[in-house]
């Protein structure tokens, strides 16, 4: 059935009722089925705030312990758990999820869309975050929390030195949480590139979208090395494969490389969105456009790349040759430049505008003072000789808090005060917010400015007690007092937020007279954001058209009329913003919750070494993921749908590259980063790591490798052939036979590859005897896992075809599968070549 004309308009109120009926989430237990970005985003933010409070409480315990030289407040093992969990909670359970929540909540509103590209994925990510975080906090309450420091260096975190379950809690809990980060990264990238308002070309995007886009790409590449490192260490701990054991050819430094490949970009993953908040808020209060938009975009891209070239500056004391140090020292100094470009752009914007000061601006001014000091000490520690002097002292603790609290917490607090009226429809009570700011600012500097001196006096990190003769008592006491002042300030912010949400003065739209689209929504924001979608012609559409909100409510934009109960938004060309299709989004469902519970079962099975339960959890999670699919796509062609303003567009399933195709492409990008990290690890252990030669290497294995490689290549070709044939579906009897046949070939080829890879893995000698065997097994395991997923995807493609989802105009399901098959063939070939190259090298 082709629908050519939408039902007649029903006025603003009728439109609201119709859209609300489609988009709203019911209360009570029905709330657990929420996939709406405003609800999920707010859940992320509130949960992150709760974890921030827990992390802050742990910090208070640390400061209580260190306030005097003779403190008997905590025993050493308890103290180890407390400081490890403070760092872990703040980095993994507060900062990153807060950014994810902020992006999930804000992006569709900023971009003029009704929701994110994959609402169920963000809901699934939230549950993974909540359950993973709960796992870590439960371990803390049971006294089983990780205790090896938040970066879990081996060999301290290896089984001989951490025999309990504590390190496993970190490795599995953090990996569980990181699923949400990778989900969020894909979600953010695809949403920014594909789900913008019509006419919003790249050069008209709000600057915050640029910041979040670069951040999401960094998450996509930065998190996989940590996920890989966690998997390898957990495999070493659970199954004795010696990746990091120097006595069996492993190397503890491999952990440091993989961890900091994630860890340093992580700092910028936290800072860049915060800088985006400043670039959005500051011009509003300066009363002019942001200065140097193009230069800021260039500097964000530069920052994104350069931040990956700094990882070794955390390893300056491990004995790396001077030239290696120089590379990373140079890159560490260089990264200051794009940061400074932004700071000067902000100063220029303020200097040439008419600044007005209120609470959000107060926090931005606080950011300037604190972050610049953190940046300057960053330049100091980028210089290797100085770094050697202060490494692992409290100087570093002070530096990193200036960077992270200055670079993230201050802007985030400003952002909360700025955007809270959007969420609550109420305005701030200034006196409390101002008092809270000064308590935080003074408390922060009292804590950490003094701590630089404590570090220069030689006090190391992570010690639970110190002798009075060291002379560290008074600076520690000053820091402890300051930290409690700061904590009172944060408590006051929480009180202010609650008071504001509950008792603030009611306000309607655009409280700050901003120009970006989020303020064109009604406040509080309805589930569908915009009654009709705007056409954008500038970066600040609301400034040029102050009546835009009313016009949109009246249905003057696109998709003003609800149809078929579909949740619709527009899908655009990545660069020009021209309309491509109507994205029909999935509705609320409990499936993300159930899938996260099954994933949790998998992780709990691993944690308690109950591997049968882990297998059941994994199978359940896969089955539930497959259960997401019947409601996606369509079994019939709809032609082109009217979208208003005299235009029409096809539904997204009738385009060859819908958002889900791009999601697969970017997910494979993250997968490629993980594979590159694995290949790096294997090569590093075989060449640079100072280990003894492997006692045994793979003797043959060529027939198995050739079979697997050829089978994967055949699967990839069959996948693309299926797409090619699907475009001609219904044209001839030959196509009707060849299309399912090609899908069957892809399925059979992947299954064949799996068998060959299992045989190859069995032929690799000494998995536990030497890192060589362990690395080779890991590479084969990677290829095997992908062949398994490929089998599943090939079967899925066949089912979609048989169920009627595939037709000449609807080929994207097969296109997504073909993309995966091609990736698997390429990485499989590289993995197999590497296994044989390592064997040849090990035999020499």
């Amino acid at each position: 059935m082709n629908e050519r004309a939408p039902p007649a308009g029903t006025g603003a109120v009728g439109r609201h009722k119709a859209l609300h009926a489609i988009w709203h989430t019911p209360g009570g237990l029905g709330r657990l089925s929420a996939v709406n970005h405003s609800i999920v985003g707010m859940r992320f933010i509130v949960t992150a705030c709760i974890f921030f409070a827990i992390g802050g409480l742990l910090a208070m315990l640390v400061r209580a312990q260190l306030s005097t030289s003779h403190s008997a407040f905590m025993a050493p093992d308890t103290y180890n758990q407390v400081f490890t969990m403070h760092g872990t909670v703040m980095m993994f359970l507060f900062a990153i999820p807060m950014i994810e929540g902020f992006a999930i909540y804000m992006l569709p509103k900023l971009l003029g869309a009704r929701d994110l590209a994959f609402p169920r994925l963000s809901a699934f990510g939230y549950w993974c975050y909540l359950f993973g975080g709960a796992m870590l906090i439960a371990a803390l309450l049971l006294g089983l929390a990780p205790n090896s420091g938040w970066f879990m260096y081996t060999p301290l975190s290896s089984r001989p030195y951490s025999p309990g379950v504590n390190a496993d809690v970190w490795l599995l809990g953090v990996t569980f949480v990181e699923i949400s980060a990778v989900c969020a990264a894909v979600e953010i990238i695809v949403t920014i590139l594909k789900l913008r308002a019509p006419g919003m070309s790249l050069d008209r995007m709000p600057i915050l979208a640029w910041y979040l886009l670069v951040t999401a790409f960094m998450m996509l590449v930065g998190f996989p090395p940590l996920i890989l490192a966690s998997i390898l260490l957990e495999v070493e701990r659970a199954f004795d494969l010696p990746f990091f054991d120097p006595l069996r050819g492993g190397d503890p430094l491999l952990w440091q490389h993989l961890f900091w490949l994630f860890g340093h970009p992580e700092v910028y993953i936290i800072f860049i969105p915060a800088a985006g908040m400043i670039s959005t808020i500051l011009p509003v209060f300066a009363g002019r456009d942001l200065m140097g938009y193009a230069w800021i975009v260039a500097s964000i891209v530069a920052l994104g790349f350069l931040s990956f070239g700094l990882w070794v500056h955390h390893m300056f004391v491990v004995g790396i040759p001077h030239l290696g140090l120089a590379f990373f020292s140079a890159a560490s100094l260089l990264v200051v430049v794009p940061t400074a470009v932004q700071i000067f752009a902000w100063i220029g914007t303020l200097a040439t505008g008419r600044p007005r000061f209120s609470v959000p601006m107060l926090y931005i001014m606080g950011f300037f003072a604190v972050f610049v000091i953190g940046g300057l000490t960053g330049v100091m520690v980028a210089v290797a000789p100085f770094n050697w002097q202060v490494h692992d002292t409290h100087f570093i603790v002070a530096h990193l808090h200036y960077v992270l609290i200055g670079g993230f917490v201050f802007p985030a607090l400003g952002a909360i005060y700025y955007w809270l009226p959007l969420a609550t429809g109420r305005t701030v009570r200034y006196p409390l917010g101002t008092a809270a700011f000064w308590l935080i600012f003074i408390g922060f500097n009292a804590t950490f400015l003094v701590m630089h001196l404590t570090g220069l006096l030689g006090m190391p990190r992570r010690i639970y007690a110190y002798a009075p003769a060291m002379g560290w008592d008074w600076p520690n006491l000053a820091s402890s007092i300051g930290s409690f002042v700061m904590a009172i300030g944060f408590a006051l912010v929480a009180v202010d937020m609650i008071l504001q949400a509950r008792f603030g003065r009611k306000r309607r739209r655009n409280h700050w007279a901003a120009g970006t689209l989020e303020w064109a929504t009604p406040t509080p924001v309805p589930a569908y954001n915009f009654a009709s979608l705007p056409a954008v012609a500038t970066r600040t559409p609301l400034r040029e058209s102050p009546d835009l909100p009313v016009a949109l409510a009246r249905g003057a934009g696109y998709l003003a009329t609800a149809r078929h109960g579909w949740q619709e938004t527009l899908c655009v060309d990545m660069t020009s913003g021209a309309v491509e299709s109507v994205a029909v989004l999935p509705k609320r469902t409990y499936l993300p919750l159930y899938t996260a519970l099954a994933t949790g079962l998998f992780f709990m099975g691993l944690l308690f070494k109950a591997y049968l339960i882990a297998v059941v959890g994994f199978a359940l999670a896969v089955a539930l993921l497959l259960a997401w699919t019947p409601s996606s796509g369509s079994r019939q062609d709809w032609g082109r749908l009217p979208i208003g303003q005299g235009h029409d567009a096809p539904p997204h399933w009738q385009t060859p590259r819908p958002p889900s195709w791009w999601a697969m492409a970017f997910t494979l990008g993250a997968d490629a980063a993980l594979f590159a990290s694995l290949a790096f690890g294997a090569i590093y252990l075989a060449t640079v790591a100072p280990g003894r030669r492997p006692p045994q290497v793979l003797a043959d294995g060529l027939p198995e490798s050739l079979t697997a490689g050829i089978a994967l290549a055949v699967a990839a070709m069959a996948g693309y052939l299926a797409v090619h044939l699907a475009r001609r579906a219904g044209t001839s009897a030959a196509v009707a036979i060849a299309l399912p046949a090609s899908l069957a070939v892809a399925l059979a080829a992947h299954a064949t590859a799996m068998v060959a890879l299992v045989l190859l893995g069995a032929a690799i000698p000494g998995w536990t005897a030497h890192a060589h065997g362990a690395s080779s097994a890991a590479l084969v395991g990677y290829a095997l896992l992908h062949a398994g997923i490929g089998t599943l995807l090939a079967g899925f493609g066949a089912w979609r075809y048989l169920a009627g989802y595939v037709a000449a105009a609807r080929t994207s399901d097969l296109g997504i599968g073909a993309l995966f098959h091609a990736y698997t063939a390429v990485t499989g070939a590289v993995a197999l070549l590497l296994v044989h190259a390592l064997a040849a090298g090990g035999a020499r």
Partner: protein
Amino acid sequence: MTRQGTAPLDLVLLPMGYVVWSIAFVALYGVQGLGCANGWHEVAAGPASLLRVLLIAIWLVSLAVVAALAAWTLRRAMREPGMMRRAVAATTATAAVAALWTGAPTVALALCN
């Protein structure tokens, strides 16, 4: 309804200068590690060691590539103005400076100690 003033090529070119920088940076660090592990710094290659010659070659080739890219994108930005083209030119030009700065230590510093 929309305009076509921003080309897909701009989106591809925007990170390209730093992609080259990243490849060169990883190659420099990787070859340095491999060279030191395999004793290439003790193998003579003209007036310098084999390892130094290799590292300088990687540096110069990457510099040439990113500088050429920067020159082309700068000319393109002057010929066809626009925010995206300016951003592309600025990104590739700074990537060229970054390549010059981070690779320069290969010329003089001790290789393996």
